[in-house]
């Protein structure tokens, strides 16, 4: 019977219109540290708060091979909202920092998500 279970696809509009499933994560980054947060379902919104003091930046990227130009900087004490679909987010920082993250997840399993690459991600 398991083969007859159908899941919504990546472009199923209703999956993004319905309220999402919450996903929370709090962590820390060591000096020059990297942290990857993987989501069990495709996201529709991610909110990231840099809990460090001003001047301690967290850089956000969506691929391990993102260039310096493909990283979004969040200053200490600031938060940023990303309305994007993805199955993981990668954080790094030159200084020791703390972060807290909230995501709203769709009902689309992360295996449906393609590997993000190209302009604005890795080039």
């Amino acid at each position, binding site marked *: 019977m398991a083969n007859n279970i159908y899941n919504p696809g*990546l*472009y*199923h*509009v209703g*999956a*993004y*219109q319905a309220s999402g499933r919450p996903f929370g994560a709090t962590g820390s980054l060591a*000096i*020059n540290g990297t942290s990857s947060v993987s989501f069990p379902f*495709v*996201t*529709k*919104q991610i909110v990231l708060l840099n809990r460090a003091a*001003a*001047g*301690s*930046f967290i*850089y*956000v*990227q*969506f691929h391990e091979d*993102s260039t*310096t*130009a*493909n*990283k*979004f*900087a969040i*200053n200490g004490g*600031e938060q*940023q*909202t*990303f*309305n*994007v*679909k*993805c199955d993981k987010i990668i954080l790094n920082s*030159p*200084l020791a920092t703390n972060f807290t993250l909230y995501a709203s997840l*769709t009902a689309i399993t992360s295996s449906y998500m393609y590997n*993000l690459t*190209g*302009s*604005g*991600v890795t080039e």
Partner: protein
Amino acid sequence: MSDKFKYTAGLNNVGSYQVAGSPYVTASTVSQDTEQEIQFPRVTNNITVKLDSAAGGEVLNSLYLSASTGGILDYILSDSNSVGTDGDGMSLTVWLSASGQTNALNNGMIFGTGPGSSAKCSLREKNGKIQMITQNGGGASIFAQTPTMTSGWFHAAGVIANNRVQIYINGESKAHKTTAYTTVGVNMGDSFYIGASLAPFEGEYKFRDAIAWSGSLSTAQVFALYQASASYTDPAFNALPKLVWMKPTGSAGEIPPQIQTLANHGTLGGDWFLQNSSSGEIITISSESPFTGQGGSGGELRVHYRSTGSLPNVANRKHYWTLDAQDEEINMNIKTKEIYLSAVGGNCDFSLHADMTNIPAARMYQHTGSGVDE
């Protein structure tokens, strides 16, 4: 399959805007009085532009160096030999913050000449004290010292003159040594360092306005310099010729290789070059500063949807959004295939992220008309 049978979403396909978009992230610097066009591979749904640099005046960030026990970490000035001759005096001034310091710098140079193991004219920390130290003609050390401060910013100044070695904290003389001593150029003239090369630099310091002065500052001049803070047009900054002057102009968060070299704003040639470092050490530009009214790289960032170069109405009629404070941002629910950013009054560091639809950029028309370029 031929492309003519390949169907893609159209520009007005509502569903394409209702699903979460795929991310597009970029960060860069727009140089003063220039414009940067960013083209998206697909039509956007939302765009966020954030100004990372602070506007309004000179960058007042600091250089943050922190090394573990036994660490070697130093910037060296690439052209700094033979700065002293017999009979010359020299002064060193620097704003320092040791807040949060966990490793006591026991015998390491902070700023001055010499490779560290034989500091010749330098400010160094030893046993919880800050010393202004030099050597006499026989190579023996002469120093004046005072307890260091481990919280907040302070202004350290060391002066060497004939028969006098003196140290000041926050414009106030803390200790001096008068002895039958004549400055000896061969011992003073050596490479300038921030941090230490041969001796461990185990400290955790933030540096701002590290200046080596060609000559001996008077007590009044040291006090005037302390009071002048970051007012670089104040006469106190012209008391004597400045041989070297390290004041970071980069944006907070920059790390090597972005700050592999730091500009020298003094009269000696060459730049500061990161000579030694190892993993785990902190080498970065900090937004912390000893001064209030933190400035930035000076620019305001303008966001618009047509080029200012070919369409003067964009600028003349102000069809743009302005970001002029650090971390200020704008979120735009806009469909577009391109966006323009221009900087006025200074360079602007920015970060941008967008969520893109699955609609190819080729389907998007170019924005024009009222509110854009008319």
